[in-house]
């Protein structure tokens, strides 16, 4: 599945969320990640986030999309991340 993950966490827990998400997804914007995940990877990412965040205060939204071909992205301004596989 193709995933877009957005998090909104307290300042002191931002690094935790960032670090965890970086292991699974491509960073595209300050608190936005996207990428291809298997069901198992999705589950372990959610488990890791659940352990590190304060669910009473923080918020994470994951948009699951069946195929990356269904996503059309219109971008304005500077491209922050890089998810190309030729570097």
């Amino acid at each position, binding site marked *: 599945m193709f995933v877009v993950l957005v998090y909104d966490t307290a300042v002191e827990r931002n690094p935790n969320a*960032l*670090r965890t998400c*970086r*292991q*699974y*997804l*491509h*960073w595209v914007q300050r608190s936005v990640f996207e*990428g*291809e*995940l*298997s069901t198992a*990877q999705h589950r372990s990412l959610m488990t890791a986030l659940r352990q590190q965040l304060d669910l009473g205060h923080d918020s994470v939204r994951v948009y699951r999309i069946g195929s990356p071909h269904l996503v059309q992205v219109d971008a304005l301004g500077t491209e922050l991340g*890089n998810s190309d*596989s*030729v*570097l």
Partner: protein
Amino acid sequence: MSASGQSYWLTEPCRIRREDNSIRIERADRTPVRIPITDIRDLVVFDNADINTAAVSLLSRHRITVHLLDHYGNYAGALTPAEDMSSAHVVRAQVTLTADPVARLAVARALVGATAANVAWALDTDLLAGPLERLPAQVRACADAEELMGIEGNFRRTAWGVLDTLLPPWLRLGGRSRRPPSNAGNAFISYLNAITYARVLTAIRCTPLHPAIGFLHADSDRRRNTLALDLAEPFKPLLAERLLRRAAAQRTLTAADFVSDVRSASLSTAGRKKVSIMVREELATTVHHRQLKRKVSYEELIHLEALKLVRLCLEGTPYKPFRPWW
């Protein structure tokens, strides 16, 4: 290696670092790029790269191979995971099978036949019909792998000649030369062959097969991965020859993408980048597989090929090398 994930192609000098249990690629004068570790199938490094123990151990834990190509596009080596997919059962069966000259030659013959057919398919021409028709009889008359290699070489030489007629003058091979390749066309073919070899090796490492115990190539002389060389043969036309023709027809590559010297040539940095983008797109191309009844990518076809050999070793299923059916 994870089943999902993609290959990453590092075409510029870079430093591979570990950061937050993931991978960070640092290039000169660029912002670092972070690659999610779970999204990496393998890394193909085309240029100088720095790597340290921390990064190697992380890559090893995630079963990721790092393929290294040298300046001229030859396969320089690989950093492979410490614990790979080993199975004494399969390796023993593989050794027994390759030790039997009859069984070994049968696989070698099939490989030569399929490779020749694939070359003719890739060149999409009738000019090879004659040699192709004569080939089965010649292959049957062979007593050992060395003779087979000779016949394959002869066929290939004819095919290179035919390929030259389909190319613009500056890209013509004018006879195959290696180490170093003498002109742009040869440099391209060498580069693609090295990449194909790396893809096949990655696929073999996903099975318990031992990459050094092969069927067609001589296994006595040097330390090399004979099985990877064998399995790369039928795929070389699909990637190397076809992409060369396409690059020539679509004018994706220009003479400026090659660094030419007296009697030697290699791809420039910009050329490498173009080639790796072409290869990445080519490997992602899908075709409908008739037995699996679903679409498979070229990358996956290579993996299926390695699995066929596992079935040959364990179950004695006759091995039919890859031939394009589309």
